[in-house]
């Protein structure tokens, strides 16, 4: 299923390659978010902040002449994970809607900071140069970038799938089901939640780094609350707690958006109706629908 976009015919059409790359990058964010939303019950409404930090890291490093991807990406992941440590440590005392809102608060701080920092372009954003390499590969070649992104997505989803089945993952699911019970069993739940939150933040940071190299441009709207909302919509659309579903959710939302906006200026209305139909009639999201597990 992930290989679908790689179908031979698409390979010589850079537009389709780019469209698929975009989906793959967003799918990576959605999968990382699903890790905490779907398995930890931690609904973050500020996931765009890590995406933006990852992207800006790569862009700012490129601004200073560092365009070797492994270095830039590792720094991007590290910085977004660091932000997640700080935000998580402060936010994870709350739960439910309060958690939703406090994560939003921190993301808004990142957003307004990016707008205000003139050295990084402020609201105009920051373009990236023509060069970026990954161990000798030219990342400015759409096909190369696509396969690099796809590889990272597959790796992330595979690792995350392994993770949620591991001892750590079971604890995480336990926390989602009943944190009180998991605490009573003796697990320091805060630590588990924090680790999951940081892994998710790092995943979004990696996606942000990829985005910077894909779009060759970063701007503060990467951190906007509507972006965070979009990520959540992808996760819900795909089916909460199904990592592969997050990929479908990203593909479906982006696909619908670009198809409908190509058809009509009033594309939001049909998009809204379709989303509404999906949420009303497909109880476990698109993934549940496709996999025939609509037992919710």
């Amino acid at each position, binding site marked *: 299923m992930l290989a679908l976009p790689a179908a031979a015919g698409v390979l010589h059409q850079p537009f389709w390659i780019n469209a698929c790359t975009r989906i793959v990058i967003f799918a990576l964010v959605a999968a990382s978010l699903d890790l905490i939303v779907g398995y930890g019950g931690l609904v973050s409404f500020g996931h765009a902040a890590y995406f933006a930090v990852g992207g800006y890291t790569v862009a700012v490093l490129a601004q200073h002449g560092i365009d070797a991807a492994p270095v830039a990406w590792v720094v991007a992941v590290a910085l977004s994970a660091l932000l997640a440590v700080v935000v998580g440590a*402060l936010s994870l*005392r709350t739960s439910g809607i*309060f958690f939703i809102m406090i994560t*939003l608060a921190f993301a808004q*701080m990142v957003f307004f*900071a990016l707008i*205000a920092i003139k050295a990084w372009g402020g609201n105009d954003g920051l373009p990236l140069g023509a060069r970026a390499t990954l161990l000798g590969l030219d990342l400015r070649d759409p096909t190369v970038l696509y396969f690099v992104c796809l590889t990272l997505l597959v790796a992330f989803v595979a690792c995350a799938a392994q993770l949620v089945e591991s001892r750590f993952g079971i604890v995480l699911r336990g926390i989602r089901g009943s944190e009180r019970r998991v605490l009573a069993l003796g697990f320091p739940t805060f630590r588990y939640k924090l680790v999951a939150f940081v892994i998710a933040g790092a995943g979004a940071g990696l996606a942000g780094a990829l985005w910077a190299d894909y779009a060759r441009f970063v701007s503060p709207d990467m951190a906007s609350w509507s972006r965070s909302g979009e990520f959540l919509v992808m996760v819900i659309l795909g089916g909460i707690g199904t990592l592969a579903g997050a990929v479908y959710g990203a593909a479906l939302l982006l696909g619908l958006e670009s198809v409908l906006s190509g058809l009509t200026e009033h594309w939001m209305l049909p998009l809204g109706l379709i989303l*509404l139909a999906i949420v*009303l009639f497909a109880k476990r999201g698109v993934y549940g629908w496709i996999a025939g597990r609509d037992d919710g």
Partner: protein
Amino acid sequence: MSLALEQLLNGLQFGVMIFLLAAGLTLVFGIMGVINLAHGSIYMLGAFVAASVAGTGAPFVVAVLAGAAAAGLAGIAIELVVIRRLYARHHLDQVLATFALILIANDGVSMIWGKTPLNMAVPAALSPAVTLGGFIYPAYRLVLIAAGILIAAALYVLISRTRLGMLIRAGATHRETVAALGVDISRLNTVVFALGAVLAGTAGALLAPILAVQVGMGEQILILTFVAIIVGGLGSIRGAFAGALLVGVVDTLGRAYIPVILKPIAKPEIADSLGGGLSAVAIYVLMAIVLVWKPRGLFPVGPR
């Protein structure tokens, strides 16, 4: 000194403005447990209907009532068609559904009314600014403050003194008990949702004369409203009122004084823009501090 008083009054006024929206949101959200992102869209609808009714030359009060009524009808329709099917489902399904409603509402409104912002004039009797102690204040804003406090009081009476209020309070915590009393829970839900929508529509209609009536006005203020009810603590009108006032005052005082405070410390260009940036995030910092300190807001309802 009178400037400080004026700024405080500004904060109060802004807080009351947020409260008009927060009241409806906290009812639906705190009591029914529905995260209604479309609350801002209902508010937008109220403003658009009020502005276009006022545009036909109808009196101000009629326009506001029309806005509130249209919002109420939209609320009933949304509850019956969408929300009702989602009570038993994951909260996030409600988020997705109401997000879809935002898209539909924004596009629908721009199809009906066009993309150009509408105008709604302040009623002539209320348009002059009045002198108040040492400063001049717009009369209409005083009316807004009064209206907000009046609505808060009316809601308080409704919730604490009437049978409907009793059912609403009971429905929040003991749904089964209420059902056992022979009350039609789903009717109660519709009523609560409609009430929330009427409040949002009223807010939209009342604010239309001082704001740009345009597509997207709902989302802009929705976030602020969420911040207010979270800071105040969910589910009670009192919490929403306190949260809204706090957010209003902090935001206003931040915008009024952070740049002034920074001026002697930093270079002017930096002070001005840094001040602007800091005051923009002031309420988010406030919310983060409140939640780190009190994870369930300042005035949480009931024990954990």
